[in-house]
């Protein structure tokens, strides 16, 4: 982290992106803890990886592909059974478009 300028890891910016409403004490604690861990990640910079391909998944080359067919799934009632709020056979949420 540079001595001046904004911190590399900015907890308030990241918490907004992650939809987490942290209180002030939490935000201060995570700012310190996670800045330390992000600094630890910097060791990866020591490695020259310009000619190294990325691994997103292991062994994808062996994976079978399934047929694109309609198969049975949960009923509407089953899918809604654990929802905190249901209206008119749908998941209910606060209004977000007027």
């Amino acid at each position: 982290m540079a001595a001046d300028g904004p911190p590399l890891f900015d907890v308030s910016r990241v918490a907004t992106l992650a939809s987490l409403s942290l209180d002030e004490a939490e935000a201060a604690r995570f700012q310190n803890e996670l800045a330390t861990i992000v600094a630890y990640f910097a060791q990866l910079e020591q490695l020259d990886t310009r000619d190294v391909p990325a691994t997103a998944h292991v062994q994808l080359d062996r994976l079978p592909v399934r047929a694109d067919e309609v198969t049975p799934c949960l009923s509407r009632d089953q899918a809604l059974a654990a929802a905190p709020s249901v209206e008119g056979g749908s998941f209910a949420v606060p209004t977000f478009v007027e």
Partner: protein
Amino acid sequence: MLHGVIDLGVIGIAERVRRGEITAEEVTAAALARIDAKNGVLNAFLHVAHDQALEQARAIDERRARGEPLGRMAGVPVGVKDAICTRGMPTTAGSKILAGYVPPYDAAVIERLRAADAVLIGKTNLDEFAMGSSTENSAFGPALNPWDTTRTPGGSSGGSAAAVAARLVPCALGSDTGGSIRQPASLTGTVGIKPTYGRVSRYGLIAFASSLDQIGPLAADVRGGARLLSVITGHDARDSTSLDVAPSDLEAACGLSLKGLRIGVPDEYFAEGLDPEVGDSVRAAIAALEQHGCVVRGVKLPHTRYALATYYVLATAEASSNLARFDGVRYGLRVEPRHDLRAMYGATRDAGFGAEAKRRILLGTFVLSAGYYDAYYLKAQRVRTLVRRDFDAAFREVDVLCSPASPTPAFRLGERVDDPLAMYLGDVYTLPASLAGVPAMSVPCAPTRSGLPVGLQIVARPLDEATMLAVAAACEAAFPCASPP
């Protein structure tokens, strides 16, 4: 110490139930009695399915009475890590955000267990969303280590490990993303197997880091673990990473000769930070394998020291994405401070997630965010390739790798909770095999002088669980599994 019928182990119970020498109901009642006596202290189970388990057991006994053949897990009580969905039984992932959630469907592994006539006895404790190495991140209190209840059983599958170690059940399911089966197995003196990535369907496993997550067994003995693994293994079109490969006879593999087998011992796994007693115990186990005719040689896995940073970039990135689904809309907790959607998301997630889940969501969101993606996430994916290449190179020279599973024996509760990086460093020997997607397991070797369990980690080539289990069975013969006093 004897615990009656549970001491018969997976195979001993299943074969006796199949022959009608004991009933599934007797076995289930014995397991429930052990759980009722011990779980108040150990907190290994978050939910005990008393009535459902006895019903399942009676149905199995009735089928036998009618002359129907029973499955390979006949009457065997199985603990299920509470990150695995069970129809009609609560599934919380150790999180307040899912408290009281009852899934409408079974995970693929649960379907397979039911089809094999296992008895689902209950749901075991874990670190919230399988994020942790001690179960101290469980929203429902930590599980304790039956060898010393001031210590952790490890994590994240610590409840499953504690339940097996205390012989509440002969086996349990865990899940392993960076060591969450092997490390608790090591700390509790149980057998813990992480299969090859793709061997076992994750359909119905609450996802943590999808490029790494794998379900596997914890068991009181190697052959019992082999049987449970063979039952849950197999292709499932509902998990797009599920491999369609021919199964091998894993129980027979436990009796294979090791003559001429080449064991590689990676120097990097015996470096700074290793408890000397753990090192001595693991070296003694490797020497015992040499007596079985194995050839032992040193190997290099030079990118080992980068595995921890690589793992915590990739796993947190995937976790931040997977945990985005917990938003208070379709299931679980909802907190609605005012009639506003974004405020509902933020308040629900702040109230529902514990500190470690939040840490990982924040880290993962950061490494995926604009301006940092290439420097952290893409970089870590490239280093992951280097870690995989280390294993590819080593397996050109040797058949398996042997090392400690954990650098220390079970640590005390509270010892690492205030230092996340210190907690992460405890996973240093299990993470590389996770990144490489290769099978790996922990099997008990000689305990420390104070009687704490130590695990030998065995790592094999992709899909070569058979050789790994053969080595584990030889280790078990030299250092028989014990159970705590």
